[in-house]
């Protein structure tokens, strides 16, 4: 797994980065500065330039920003109004510059930029530039803002009980949400920039003192190896830094639920948040993490445990049910209770296809329906469900192409798959389900168990940032079991997961004892 990262590094050396660099310094002339800027950006119409004369010296200065990226109210009130209303301004350029920098801008974050490079990126990120004629430094005023989606309930991970907030596309807001949950000064946000052209901000979040420092180092090492021009979504990052790109199983979890991210941070994991996407990445993970829902901890522990058990069972059904059905029907009908065997045999009378083909057809149809439902607008998506599920199923049975029991099996499989909390793992289950189906079509139960062993072999060799995917089962961590199959009562979960090797192993200062 390390090797795959290394390969990418090699590739990086070979490729010639074709990046436009503008290391040139700003000139003293305001007009040439403004023209340079225009030229670089290609005179876009969303580049707004406002020139004004200041003070008694009538020094020209220019305010430039990109429309839509800035909070125009801030520009007006905190910059423009201040400048215009200012009195007793110095008459000399440099002094004026210092005066403005020190006194006139009622914006918190102001920087100075001397090269074109230094100023273009902030400009494109939503800062406002302030040029003053005769000064070869521009002021970079952070006015980023503009339109953004309001905080809504996450669509992909809905809970019955739990916070109704989800991440949005704005990084600052997302970080703030996390901060609101963890008011610990040790919470660290390390910013990186990704994408040669997109230059998106990417934040590695972790709690210092809990997290294993070697893990952070490894995450950052991998992040630095990223070399693409644009990072649209956190999936790009995931694809670059995951251990094995061949595995059908996700090795990094994504979530748009802040509470989930916070819980992971407190366990000693690392989160990566990317500008422009509500999906945060969590790492490292193991298989048991992926079947856990945030809600397990919100409900009372008995409910949490039982629901978790139900989900494990759903995962089992989702993978094995069609395969088991096929093997029972073709190779091991002796395992069915007699009367059931007879009635299945009767119901399959006249069905033209063998069970394997029948199951494959129906599962494939189900996949089509799911995909179609996901692509269509929500209102029509529901219609697809009805048309596909009910009409096609019913018609297929009526036409005698499939047996009614097959429809039940496929529906049950699909429902089980929906019960799995993470979409990324649910989709891997859908993939390996077909593998099991074929294995059972050839060898029956023997094929299923061989396929199961193979999946397990893959599991034990798979790692997520060095954590074996099969933890805490193997390598075995006894103490981690209070939150794997059984979700112990909250006051019993004293330890952070051992497989993460956190610095601070105990989540309760007093070992759960009252003072």
């Amino acid at each position, binding site marked *: *797994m390390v*090797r*795959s990262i290394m390969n990418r590094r090699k590739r990086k050396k070979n490729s010639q980065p074709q990046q436009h660099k503008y290391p040139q310094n700003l000139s003293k002339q305001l007009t040439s500065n403004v023209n340079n800027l225009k030229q670089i950006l290609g005179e876009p119409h969303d580049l707004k330039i406002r020139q004004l004369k200041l003070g008694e010296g009538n020094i020209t200065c220019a305010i430039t920003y990109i429309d839509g990226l800035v909070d125009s109210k801030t520009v007006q009130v905190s910059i423009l109004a201040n400048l215009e209303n200012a009195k007793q301004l110095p008459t000399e350029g440099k002094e004026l510059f210092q005066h403005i920098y020190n006194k006139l801008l009622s914006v918190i974050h102001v920087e100075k930029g001397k090269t074109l490079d230094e100023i273009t990126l902030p400009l494109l990120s939503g800062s406002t530039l302030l040029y003053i004629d005769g000064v070869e430094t521009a002021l970079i005023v952070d006015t980023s803002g503009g339109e953004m989606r309001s905080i809504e309930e996450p669509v992909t991970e809905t809970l019955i009980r739990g916070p109704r907030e989800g991440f949005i596309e704005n990084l600052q807001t997302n970080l703030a949400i996390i901060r609101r949950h963890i008011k610990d000064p040790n919470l660290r946000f390390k910013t990186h920039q990704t994408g040669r052209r997109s230059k998106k901000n990417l934040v590695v979040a972790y709690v210092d003192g809990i997290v294993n420092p070697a893990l952070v180092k490894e995450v950052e090492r991998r992040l630095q190896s990223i070399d693409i021009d644009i990072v649209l979504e956190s999936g790009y990052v995931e694809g670059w830094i995951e251990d*094995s*790109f*061949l595995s059908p199983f996700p090795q990094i979890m994504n979530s748009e639920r802040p509470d989930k991210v916070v819980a992971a941070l407190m366990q000693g994991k690392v989160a990566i948040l990317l500008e422009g996407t509500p999906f945060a990445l969590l790492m490292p993970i193991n298989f048991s993490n992926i079947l856990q829902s945030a809600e397990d901890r919100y409900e009372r522990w008995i409910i949490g445990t039982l629901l978790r058990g139900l989900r494990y069972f759903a995962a089992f059904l989702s993978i094995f049910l069609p395969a088991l059905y096929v093997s029972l*029907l*073709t*190779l091991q*009908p*002796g395992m069915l209770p*007699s*009367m059931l*065997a*007879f*009635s*299945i*045999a*009767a*119901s*399959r*009378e006249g*069905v033209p296809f*063998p*069970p*394997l083909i029948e199951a494959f057809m129906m599962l494939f149809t189900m996949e089509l329906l799911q995909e179609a439902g996901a692509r269509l607008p929500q209102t029509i998506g529901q219609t697809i469900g009805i048309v596909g599920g009910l009409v096609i199923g019913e018609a297929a049975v009526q036409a005698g192409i499939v047996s009614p029991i097959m429809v039940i099996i496929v529906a049950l499989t699909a429902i089980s798959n929906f019960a799995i909390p993470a979409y990324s793992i649910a989709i891997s289950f859908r993939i390996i389900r077909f*593998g099991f189906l*074929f*294995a059972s*079509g*050839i060898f*029956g139960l023997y*094929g299923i168990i061989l396929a199961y062993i*193979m999946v397990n072999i*893959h599991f034990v*060799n798979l790692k997520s940032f060095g954590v074996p995917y099969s933890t805490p089962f193997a390598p075995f961590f006894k103490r981690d079991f209070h939150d794997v199959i059984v979700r112990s009562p909250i006051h019993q979960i004293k330890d952070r997961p051992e497989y993460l090797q956190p610095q601070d192993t105990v989540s309760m200062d007093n070992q759960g004892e009252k003072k």
Partner: protein
Amino acid sequence: MKKNRNCFLGICSLLLILTGCWDVVNIEDRGFIIGNSIDLVDSANSDQPELLVTNQIVIGSGIPSAANEGGDKKAFINFKTTGKSIYKMEEEIATISNNTPFYEHLTTLIVSEKVAEKERLFTNLLDTYLRNVNLRRGIQVVIAKNEANKVLEYTTPDFPLPAMHIEEMLERGSRETGLLSPTTLGDIEEYQLNNNSYVLPYLELKDVLSYQAGAVFHGPKDKMVGLFNMDDMLALSLFRGEKTTKIIEAPFKDNTFTLQINRLNSTLNVDSSDISAIKINLTLEVEGIIKETFMTEDLSSQKVVESVQDEMSKEISKRIKETFTKAQKEFGTDVFRIWQELETKHYEKWQKIKDNWEEGEYYFKDAQLIVDVVTEIYSIGAINRTR
């Protein structure tokens, strides 16, 4: 990672290439054989008798269900073949039926009385069934009077499958009346290997199919030697202390009353000091409820109850003794499994006599039985007496 991929791909592609699917038979193409019956075709030469084997194959669509009215279709077909080797005959089914015969759902094996009475034949027949790994050891074996294949044609409205009907009948019957529990292929194997005597259910088809007796098999002789009637079966069950509900009636001052035995504790003690006259002490503790009386006495009185209890004890011990004598003198079979008591508690003695227990010296014939019954009536029902 590369190695994983190579292996993974290699195995996957191999699996896909190997789409021979040698054993794949679709469920609707299988002929589920649920019952077998074995009859003896008139045999002149006795060393290799000719057999008639009937295989009952289910027709799924004939079984009435919620979705499927069943209609006039029969739920089964009986295929008959004759020959000398059971296995060969079973293979022949494949040539007559359009389905692949499938034996894993075989539940009942009905053997005709005539077959059972032939020495060693029964054991040899069972060999075929035991040798096949795909057969269940839980197949129920019953003996039928006259023709066994007729039994496989008997249906009732709620049980369209005769073989299933027999299985159900035996299981329910043993649970509710406390008569002999159904005997499976596995049990018989055990008896035969140990050379034990045993009793199998005996079915008779008149107007209805009924379970009226037990067929007694003699271990060393390896054949059926006689019949136990229902009273004998009850006595046998009492002797063995089988924990099922039993109903027994006893006379009381010219009238009779019926007791339902709910708890039964039987203790067997064997005194083997004199092997030519082994003493068997059976202590039975019986607890039950009075279910039916034809008498006028008030059962609320302690005295009456006590005398009723005594009568019952006497009746039980009388019946057990009768049956014991029948088994001992008439058939010479130790179906009471007294040998087991000897083997486990008097191991050295048993080593000496085990070859002469039911044969040779016939020590079993000289054994004496002493029965001691204690009856306890713990409920007399809802009323004290009827006029």
